[in-house]
């Protein structure tokens, strides 16, 4: 029991953006420029440093260099995604990659250029930058928009929908301040979800003191997936999980070393094994896992012998994006020129910016709920988005929202009813018991690790295990109502675990539904270790009468897609 007394504030806005990260900030800027009326951007932390971009990023991974066209990017992503992608989404994104890159430069991002003033690229899709301050630059752009109001440190938990003319449409959202006992009931004409992907579902590489030293932001909990799914929106391709290859312990990126100093992946015996397995992301991890399984590990990126100059550049590059790696090198004295860097795969994430999982959207990024849009890592069908793709999607969603708002006849809907207050208050009223949010989170991560293809089983799963995972996660969901909160920070954590549990449930059903191994590591189905032509289709899902229903959809080809029941 706690004596927290909640007060409720009501806000009315035209456009609501949930999540002020990469895609959300950019959409806010574009909507502000479009003069659509009042725009409210709600962010659970502070927009200057929230989300994936907090520490900074290493490069812009999605760019179309000279001699290439947007369709090349589509083909690259299609091949990497083994065909389970949406051509319309990839193409509309790819067409904007260069424009948003130039816009970032105009906002102050440092981009490396050659003597002719051309961007220096790494490969044909990658631009070299100093990405430490992308997020503050985007935040500055948001604050410069007079029509945009920013609500920092407010966590949204649920969408509010309404039946209007026989259709369920979105009418707003509800959440609470993580700092003070205030509930926000927000009425909106259109809503964009840009809450990023989901980390913290599986037991992480460092389960102890450094449990949040993970690749993806531990503060992106899959809130958007959960609130959208609960409201009836359709999701796609969750079974295409993402696992990253990382430097051991610090979980720092490996691409910088592999591409920067040309380091090869070697096993303990010094053999270069990457040739055997291939060099796409899943192949690099698959190779590492297999070498370890054969007893040939640990595996390394061979940096031993690089020059002191290269080493200094690595120190600096990592300070701009993953500072723990530089600290580790210097503190241990085992710098990369002296000792090769050990590598490992991370725990799996659900991230629509790297793989294809997320909301099922039309070409304009509207979800299956009219008025509800999705962009960035929360939106599915379009992998390999990265920073510039998230910006492009934020822009596309903003344009679609503006035209939706323009066409919408406002004011003929019944008054919006909010009913979340008692659910929040309940957690302050329950008696302290011996179940904590942390306990439930750990139990969830353990179950996912052991039964749903985590690090524990080399990412492999089978039906028997998944069925157990389903049962055990369901059981944990039953505990959430009785979790006690002392303050708003506790309430935040209770809602985070509630969201993650639902995301786990969706993920498990998707893993069960795809009876093949379409992607190594990301979807390593031990019952069906091969690809099957029968599964050249999307696995989608919806919540219907409280149950998760799987829907198979045929591959979408061509430049545009509209929801059939629109």
């Amino acid at each position: 029991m706690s004596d927290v007394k909640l007060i409720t504030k009501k806000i009315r806005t035209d456009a609501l953006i949930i999540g002020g990260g990469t895609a959300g900030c950019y959409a806010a800027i574009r909507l502000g420029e479009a003069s659509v009326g009042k725009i409210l951007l709600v962010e659970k932390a502070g927009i200057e440093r929230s989300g994936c971009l907090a520490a900074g990023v290493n490069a812009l991974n999605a760019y179309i260099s000279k001699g290439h066209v947007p369709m090349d990017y589509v083909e690259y992503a299609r091949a990497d995604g083994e065909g389970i992608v949406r051509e319309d989404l990839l193409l509309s994104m790819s067409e904007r990659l260069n424009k948003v890159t130039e816009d970032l430069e105009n906002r102050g991002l440092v981009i490396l250029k050659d003597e002719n003033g051309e961007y220096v690229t790494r490969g044909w899709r990658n631009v070299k930058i100093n990405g430490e301050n992308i997020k503050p630059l985007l935040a500055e752009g948001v604050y410069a928009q007079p029509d945009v109001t920013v609500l920092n440190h407010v966590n949204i938990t649920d969408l509010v929908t309404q039946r209007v003319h026989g259709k369920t449409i979105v009418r707003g959202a509800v959440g609470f301040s993580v700092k003070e006992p205030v509930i926000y009931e927000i009425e909106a004409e259109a809503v964009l979800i840009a809450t990023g992907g989901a980390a913290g579902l599986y037991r992480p590489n460092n389960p102890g003191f450094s449990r949040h030293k993970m690749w993806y932001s531990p503060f992106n909990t899959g809130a958007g997936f959960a609130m959208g799914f609960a409201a009836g929106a359709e999701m796609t391709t969750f079974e295409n999980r993402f696992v990253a290859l990382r430097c051991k312990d610090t979980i720092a990126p490996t691409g910088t070393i592999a591409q920067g100093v040309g380091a090869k992946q070697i096993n303990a015996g010094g053999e270069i094994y990457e040739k055997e397995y291939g060099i796409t992301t899943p192949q690099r991890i698959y190779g590492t896992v297999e070498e370890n399984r054969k007893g040939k590990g640990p595996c390394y990126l061979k940096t031993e012998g690089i020059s002191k100059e290269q080493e200094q550049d690595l120190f600096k590059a990592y300070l701009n994006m993953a500072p723990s790696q530089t600290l580790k090198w210097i503190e241990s004295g085992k710098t990369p020129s002296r000792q090769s860097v050990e590598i490992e795969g991370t725990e799996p994430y659900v991230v629509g910016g790297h793989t294809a999982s997320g909301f099922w959207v039309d070409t304009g990024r509207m979800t299956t709920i009219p008025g509800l849009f999705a962009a960035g890592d929360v939106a599915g069908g379009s992998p390999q988005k990265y920073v510039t793709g998230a910006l492009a999607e934020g822009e596309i969603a903003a344009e679609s929202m503006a035209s939706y708002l323009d066409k919408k006849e406002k004011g003929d809907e019944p008054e919006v009813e909010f009913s979340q207050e008692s659910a929040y208050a309940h957690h302050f009223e329950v008696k302290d018991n011996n179940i904590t949010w942390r306990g439930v989170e750990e139990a969830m991560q353990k179950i996912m690790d052991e039964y749903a293809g985590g690090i524990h089983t080399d990412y492999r799963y089978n039906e028997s295990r998944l069925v157990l995972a389903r049962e055990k996660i369901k059981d944990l969901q039953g505990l959430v109502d009785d979790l006690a909160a002392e303050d708003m920070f506790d309430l935040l954590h209770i809602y985070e675990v509630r969201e993650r549990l639902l995301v786990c449930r969706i993920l498990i059903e998707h893993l069960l539904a795809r009876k093949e191994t379409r992607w190594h590591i990301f979807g390593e189905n031990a019952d069906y270790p091969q690809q099957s032509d029968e599964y050249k289709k999307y696995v989608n899902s919806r919540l219907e009468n409280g149950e998760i229903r799987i829907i198979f959809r045929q591959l979408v080809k061509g430049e545009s897609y509209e929801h059939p029941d629109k």
Partner: protein
Amino acid sequence: MSIRINKEKCVGCGRCIDACPGNLLELAEGKADIRIPEDCWGCTSCMKYCSQSALEYYLGADLGGRGAVMTIEKEKDIYNWKIHMPGGETKVISVNRKNANQY
């Protein structure tokens, strides 16, 4: 890895608090404090807002930490990252924010 606050240096300005993507920092008795050290992502955002270099970054023993701490001192476009080794030695790496990564 996590963040430790040097209470002697902290002047309680509160600027780091807004910057943390995980809402982990708060003011307690006029000084910054980290609520759950284990929940730090190690992004160093908070450090970039502290004019006093009061925020100290360290690796947990599980990541190989052996007592060193890292701080940032800002000088116009330069971040001076200082690594203070347990033996007393300090190593400095200066990064110009106007230079792109070479890799």
